[in-house]
């Protein structure tokens, strides 16, 4: 290195502000800020975010279909599982993410802040990763609880945020995979402290006066504080606790344990929860009007205009089907009504390619209509239901008649039907 370059480096070094506060080399002294804990938590989070991403994109595609994507009507429970897993995994990821960010916190204050082009590139890519991860989990758990303090549409923002977060994750895996692999294959019990080479003493999480280890080798299992293994078990226990406290909103046998879940799958009219009420959909009057008619039109042999009595006089079929909400709760019900196949036959439209069902909600309302493709039309359990659990549908469940089909998000099980349009 030339003398001129060396003197420039010296000058830059002298220009750098003093390392104060969290920038100090010894600011984070807990043994838990170390690479193995970061690696284990990183793997768990990588799996959790991948699962959330895939299940989330599936849910998005079912609701916003693309030409190449077709969602089957069977098995009936599939969406209940994918969306239940999506929400449960997101909730379990909250303690994982917070633990991971805490473990690597010293790297946020790393000094010097930038060490070369690749380091700059990698650090800047942490903004979409960390911001995206926090954004997805915060908006997700907020939304399912009716806590939406933001000013944007949740589905649109959560969908866009998913791509930003997963892109950040791809870069992070590319940057850290070799470090994690090395840390986890090393036979030694102790991992490298973060940032590498920083002095370590007994502090935050292994507090209470454990002997300062800065001048000597660290014991594998510190006396008095949380060891790495203890910490990772604690994080696992936290993920387990929040799962047990919420997953009963979709796993019925755990219903009574779900003390912090936004839904109870047995609480609602006719024992089934409701996503949108008749009042908030502003359909109560039209749905209970004695002059109510269901129109069957479009590419049909004969148009039908059916009163409630007409609908009840058509052949009825019963099916046990779950209602599976995008919010991650689900509940099973026994539905009774007219098979769409039978209705199409009555209208002389056996060869229908697809059917659009239209709700009484005002035009322009989200999820006012939904489309059944041929796969759904052929399924005998695709019903226009008049009854739930042995009683006429409650108004909030879509009285006088609603769509209920197997393997479908609740928002596409259109309620308060007024028209069936055949294509």
């Amino acid at each position, binding site marked *: 290195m030339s003398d001129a370059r060396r003197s420039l480096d010296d000058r830059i070094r002298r220009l750098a502000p003093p390392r104060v506060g969290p920038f100090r080399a010894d600011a984070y002294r807990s043994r838990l800020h170390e690479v193995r804990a970061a690696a284990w938590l990183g793997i768990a989070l990588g799996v959790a975010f991948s699962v959330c991403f895939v299940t989330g994109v599936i849910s998005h595609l079912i609701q916003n279909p693309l030409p190449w994507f077709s969602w089957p009507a069977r098995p009936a429970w599939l969406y209940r599982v994918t969306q239940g897993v999506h929400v449960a995994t997101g909730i379990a990821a909250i303690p994982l993410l917070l633990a991971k960010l805490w473990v690597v916190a010293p790297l946020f204050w790393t000094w010097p802040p930038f060490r070369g082009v690749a380091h700059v590139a990698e650090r800047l890519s942490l903004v979409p990763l960390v911001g995206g991860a926090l954004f997805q989990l915060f908006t997700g758990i907020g939304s399912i609880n009716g806590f939406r303090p933001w000013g944007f549409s949740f589905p649109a923002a959560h969908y866009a945020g998913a791509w930003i977060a997963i892109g950040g994750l791809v870069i992070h895996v590319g940057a850290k995979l070799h470090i994690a692999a090395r840390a986890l294959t090393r036979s030694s019990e102790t991992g490298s402290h973060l940032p*590498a080479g920083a002095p370590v003493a007994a502090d935050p999480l292994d507090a209470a006066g454990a002997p300062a280890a800065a001048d000597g080798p660290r014991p594998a299992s510190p006396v008095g504080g949380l060891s790495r293994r*203890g910490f990772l078990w604690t994080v696992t226990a936290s993920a387990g606790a929040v799962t047990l406290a919420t997953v009963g909103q979709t796993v019925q046998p755990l219903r009574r344990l779900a003390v912090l879940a936004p839904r109870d799958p047995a609480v609602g009219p006719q024992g089934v*929860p409701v996503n949108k009420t008749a009042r908030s959909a502003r359909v109560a009057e039209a749905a209970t009007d004695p002059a109510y008619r269901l129109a069957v039109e479009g590419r049909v042999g004969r148009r039908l205009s059916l009163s409630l009595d007409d609908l009840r006089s058509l052949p009825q079929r019963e099916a046990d089907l779950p209602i599976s909400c995008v919010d991650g709760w689900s509940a099973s019900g026994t539905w009774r009504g007219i098979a769409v196949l039978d209705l199409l036959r009555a209208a002389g439209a056996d060869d229908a390619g697809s059917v659009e069902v239209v709700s009484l909600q005002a035009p322009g309302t989200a999820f006012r209509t939904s489309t059944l493709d041929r796969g759904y039309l052929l399924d005998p359990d695709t019903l226009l239901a008049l009854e739930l659990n042995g009683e006429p549908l409650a108004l909030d469940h879509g009285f006088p008649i609603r769509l209920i089909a197997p393997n479908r998000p609740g928002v596409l099980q259109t309620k308060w039907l007024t028209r069936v349009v055949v294509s």
Partner: protein
Amino acid sequence: MTPASSDKPRGPAFWSAFVIGWVVIGFGVLTVLQRAGATHPVMFAAWFLGLIFVHDLLLSPAASVAARWIGGRIPRWGVAVVLGGAIVSGTLVLISLPPFLGESAGNETLLPRNYVGGLAGALAVTWVVVLAVVLVRRRSRGSA
């Protein structure tokens, strides 16, 4: 090779991931902009970046300070278990905030539970487990 230099991102694996990742991120940002009527990009960005600051400048340091505070007040043999209990409790408190803050907006099937009671019960179970672990550890240490 020092640990610091070997830990730097490098090589074709990193740069391929970097390019692919930013293409994916770019798609996300494009989606935000294309659907601006729904995503409200300024609001989106404010929450996106704001959450990083709230976490890194408030939540994470608060966790460190709380851990130090708890650690300084517990006899040495119980610190690990009590800190473990505190971490589980903190997580439970955190995920009980949305039900506390959420609004059911006339939908009686949303937030139908007593969440104060639910949180109290979950915390009680957590600390019964903590107590049990402490007692078992003391006994095994005493008999050793």
